[in-house]
C-alpha cells in the first residue's frame, strides 16, 4: 500500500491564551477530495495554514509522499505542490489572466519576461480546467467565480498536487458553484488531491470521498464516503445529538406578535419585505451576505430610518425610526457586531446588563446600585455567564460570555420580540448550546424570536420557520419539515421556483 500524499501527525499549535490545535492527525490520499468540517474556531483555518506553510506547528510531523518535510514558508509548501486557495482572492486586478498565473515566477530570457511562453503555458492550464476566457483577459473583467477558477489555474500552473480550498463557494452564485464542482471532480480524476473546507455541508456531501471533522482543536471523527450524512457531520462537529444541541423541542405557538408590512430600507429602495412572527416562534431569516437582512432588523429597531412600511407589535402600531419607541413596544435587538454595537467593552458586566433598563429602575431620580447588581447577578446565573463577579470588565470575557451579556441586557427588560443578528458568531460550541437553550426557554415562555444567521446549520437547526431574503425582499418561506439546505440556497440566490405559494 502506497503512502498518503500528505500526512500530518500529532499537530499542536498554541496561541497566547488559546490552544488552537491539539494532537491533530490528518491525511490526504492521491486523487482524493477530503472534506474538512467543523464549527467556527474548531481549528480548520489554523490547520490549513500549517499545511500551506503560513504558520509553523509547535509540535507534530508532516510527511509528503512518505517523507518527513518541514514547511517554513508558503514558498516551501508550493515548491512541494501544495496550494491554498484563500477565501479572499489574491489576484492583481490590473494585470491579465496570464500574468497572474505566473506572478512571482515569470519565465524570462535575457532578463526580459518571456511573454510567449507565459501565454502558451497559460492556455494549456486554462484548457485543463475548461474555462471560457483566454489568457489575455484582464482580471478586472472577470466575475468572482471566474477569478476563483483563475486561482485554481494558478495553482495548477505551479504543478500543485494538493489544493486546499477554504470556503470556495462563499461568494459564488449557484451557477458559478456548479462550474467549480465540475472542475473539482475533473481534477480529482486527473489525480489532484483536494482538501475542501466548507460550512455548506450539502456541498461537502456531494463532493467529498471522505470527511474529517474537527472540534475545539481536536480530531472529532472521520466519515467514509458511505457514512457521510448531514446529521453525522453535525453531531461530530458539536459533540452531541442534533435536536438537543439546538434545543429544538416542539412547543405551542401563540398569537401573532410582530407584524411587518411593506418595509423598505435604503439598501434596496425598490423592494419591500413583509413578515409575521407568532409568540413562541423562532423565525430564521436566511440569505446571502448583503441580502438586506441586517438592514431589516436595524430598520425595525429604529437604528436606521425605514423608507416606508408599518410595524405592529401585539396589534398596536409602533412608529419606526426610534430605538426608544421600539424598546418601549417590547422589541430588543442583539446586534451583529457585539464588540462595536452590542457592548460597552470598557465597562463591567453590571453596567452593561443595566444599560438598556436604567430608566425603569430609578428611585427618586437616582440609579439604585444594589438593585442593578442584583439584576446582573440574577441574569449571570440564569444565562450561565462565567465571570468572577458582576464587576469584571466585559472586554476580558470570552466571546460566548460576551454574547450572553449582550443578550442579558435585553432580558432585563423582558421583551416581547427578540431580534438576533448572528446570535452565535465567534462563540464556542459549548456557549452556543447554552445560547440556543436560552432562546428555546424564552420562546417556550412566549417570546417571539426573529433571527438572522449566515450559518446554514444554525438556520436549519434552530428555526421553527425560515424566511429567505434576496435583495431586500422575502423570496420564500420554508416550514420546519420542508427545511433543506438546497431549497434555502436556491431562494437565497434569487431562484423563486420553490416559492410557489
Amino acid at each position, binding site marked *: 500500500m502506497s503512502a498518503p500524499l500528505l500526512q500530518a501527525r500529532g499537530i499542536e499549535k498554541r496561541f497566547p491564551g488559546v490552544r488552537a490545535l491539539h494532537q491533530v492527525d490528518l491525511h490526504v490520499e492521491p486523487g482524493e477530495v477530503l472534506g474538512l468540517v467543523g464549527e467556527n474556531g474548531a481549528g480548520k483555518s489554523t490547520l490549513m495554514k500549517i499545511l500551506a506553510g503560513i504558520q509553523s506547528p509547535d509540535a507534530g510531523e508532516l510527511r509528503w509522499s512518505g517523507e518527513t518535510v518541514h514547511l517554513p514558508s508558503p514558498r516551501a509548501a508550493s515548491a512541494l505542490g501544495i496550494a491554498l486557495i484563500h477565501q479572499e482572492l489574491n489576484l492583481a486586478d490590473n494585470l491579465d489572466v496570464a500574468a497572474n498565473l505566473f506572478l512571482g515566477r515569470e519565465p524570462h530570457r535575457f532578463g526580459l519576461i518571456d511573454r510567449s511562453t507565459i501565454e502558451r503555458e497559460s492556455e494549456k492550464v486554462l484548457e485543463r480546467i475548461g474555462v471560457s476566457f483566454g489568457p489575455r483577459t484582464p482580471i478586472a473583467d472577470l466575475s468572482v467565480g471566474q477569478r476563483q477558477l483563475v486561482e485554481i489555474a494558478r495553482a495548477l500552473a505551479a504543478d500543485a498536487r494538493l489544493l486546499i480550498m477554504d470556503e470556495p463557494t462563499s461568494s459564488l452564485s449557484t451557477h458559478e458553484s456548479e462550474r467549480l464542482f465540475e472542475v473539482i471532480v475533473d481534477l480529482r480524476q486527473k489525480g489532484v488531491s483536494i482538501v475542501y473546507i466548507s460550512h455548506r455541508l450539502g456541498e461537502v456531501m456531494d463532493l467529498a470521498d471522505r470527511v474529517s471533522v474537527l472540534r475545539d482543536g481536536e480530531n472529532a471523527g472521520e466519515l467514509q464516503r458511505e457514512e457521510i450524512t448531514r446529521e453525522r457531520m453535525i453531531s461530530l462537529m458539536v459533540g452531541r445529538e442534533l435536536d438537543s444541541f439546538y434545543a429544538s423541542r416542539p412547543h405551542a405557538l401563540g398569537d401573532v406578535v410582530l407584524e411587518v408590512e411593506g418595509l423598505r430600507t435604503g439598501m434596496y429602495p425598490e423592494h419591500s419585505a413583509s413578515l409575521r412572527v407568532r409568540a413562541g416562534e423562532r423565525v430564521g431569516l436566511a440569505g446571502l451576505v448583503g441580502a438586506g437582512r441586517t438592514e431589516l432588523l436595524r430598520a425595525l429597531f429604529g437604528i436606521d430610518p425605514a423608507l416606508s412600511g408599518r410595524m405592529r407589535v401585539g396589534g398596536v402600531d409602533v412608529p419606526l425610526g426610534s430605538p426608544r419607541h421600539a424598546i418601549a413596544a417590547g422589541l430588543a435587538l442583539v446586534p451583529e457586531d457585539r464588540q462595536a454595537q452590542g457592548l460597552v467593552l470598557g465597562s463591567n458586566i453590571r453596567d452593561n446588563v443595566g444599560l438598556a433598563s436604567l430608566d425603569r429602575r430609578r428611585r427618586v431620580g*437616582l*440609579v439604585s446600585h444594589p438593585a442593578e*447588581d*442584583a439584576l446582573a447577578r440574577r441574569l449571570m446565573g440564569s444565562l450561565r455567564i462565567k465571570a468572577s463577579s458582576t464587576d469584571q470588565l466585559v472586554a476580558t470575557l470570552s466571546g460566548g460570555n460576551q454574547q450572553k451579556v449582550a443578550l442579558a441586557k435585553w432580558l432585563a427588560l423582558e421583551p416581547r420580540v427578540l431580534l438576533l443578528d448572528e446570535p452565535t458568531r465567534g462563540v464556542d460550541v459549548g456557549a452556543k448550546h447554552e445560547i440556543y437553550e436560552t432562546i428555546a426557554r424564552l420562546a417556550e415562555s412566549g417570546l417571539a424570536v426573529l433571527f438572522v444567521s449566515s450559518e446554514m446549520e444554525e438556520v436549519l437547526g434552530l428555526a421553527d420557520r425560515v424566511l429567505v431574503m434576496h435583495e431586500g425582499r422575502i423570496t420564500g418561506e420554508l416550514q420546519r419539515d420542508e427545511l433543506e439546505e438546497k431549497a434555502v440556497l436556491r431562494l437565497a440566490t434569487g431562484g423563486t421556483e420553490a416559492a410557489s405559494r
Partner: protein
Amino acid sequence: MKKILGIFGLFAVICLFTALEADSFTKPNNIANLASRTGLYGVLGIGVAFVIVTGGIDLSIGSIVGLTGTLLPWLIIRHGWSVPAALGFVALVSIVIGLFHGLLITRLNLQPFLVTLCGLLIYRSIAQYVTDDQNQGFGTEYTGLRDLATGSMGTMATLMTLVGAVLTGFLFFRYLGVKRSEVAPKEQRPVLIGLITAGALTLVGLITWLTGSTLLAEVPAPMPFWILVVVAMICGLVLNDTVFGRHLLALGRNEQAARFSGVRTTWVIIAAYVICAVLAGLGGVLFTCDLNGIQPATLGQVFELYAIAAAVLGGCSLRGGECTILGIVIGTAVLRLLLNAFNLLGTSYTIESAVMGTVILLGVLADEVIRRFVRRRRRTAG
C-alpha cells in the same frame, strides 16, 4: 480610585516640599488664597469634564468666561440692569452657547474641536465689540455680589465638617443598601472605605472646629471654594447616580452600543455641552467679581487649557468614558499649588508653563504605564 490616590499623593508631596522650603506657604492667608483659586478654576475643569467624557472637547471655555465676565458688569453698571436680571441673562447666554455647540456637533456632525475653536474666536470678539473693548468693573459698589468670589464663610474646619457630614450620610445609606443586597464583600469594600474616610473627615473637622486651635480652624473658607465643593458634589451625583450620567459614561466608551441600547445619544451629548458652557459662565461671573476690573480682550484667556489640563491630570481620558470629579478637583489644586509654589520660592515666572506642562505630561505618562502594566498582568493571569 487608584488614580485619585496617585494624584492626591502628588498633591501632598508638593505641599510638603513647598511648606518646608517656604515658611509663608502655611500662612492662613496663603492657603485661603490657594483654595479660592482652586475654586475658581475647578468649576471650569468640572465643566469641561462633561464634554471630555463624551470624547469631545471644548476650546471656547476661556472665551465664554471672557464674554460672561464682561457682560455682567456691563449690563449692571452701564445699562442699570438689576443683579438677578443680569445673572439670568448671562446664564441664558451660556445655555444658548452650549446648545449651539451641541446641535452643531450632533445634528450636523461637525467636529467638537472645530466648532469650539470657532466659538473661542467668536465669543471673545463679541465681548470686545459690545463693550467697545473698554475695561469693565463694579467699582466700589455691589459688594454683596462680589462677595460671591471674594468673601468667605466660616473656616476650612467648618467646611470640612459639613461636607464630611453630608458625604457620611450619603455613603451610610448606600452602604446599608449594598449590605442588604448580598453584594460580594469584595465589592462592598470601596463603599466602606469611602464611608470611613468621610466619617474621619467629619470627625477631624468637628474637633478642629470646636477646639479652634489648628491651622484648619484659622483659615477662612473662601466662597469660590464652597461653590466648587457644592458643584462637585452635585456633578458627582449626576455623573455616577443618575440615568443621564450613566448614559453619558456609556456613550463616552461606545457611542454606537449606547445608541443600540436605546440611549438618546444626541440629547445626552447636547446636554454635556450645555453643562460645560453653563459652568464656564458661572466661572466668568466668579472671575469678574473676583477681579473687579477686567479687560474683555484678556479675561479668561487660555483658561480652557487649564481646565482641560486639570481634567486630564485628574484622570479623565480624552478618548472619553472616564472621569472622576474628585480627581478633577485635586488636579486643579495641583496646578494652582504649583503656581503658588513658584511664587513663594521666587522661581522665575518664565519657566512656570514649562513645569506645568511637564507635570501634566508625567501624570499622563504614569497613567499610561500603569494601564499597560495592569493590562499585561490581566492577560497573563487570564
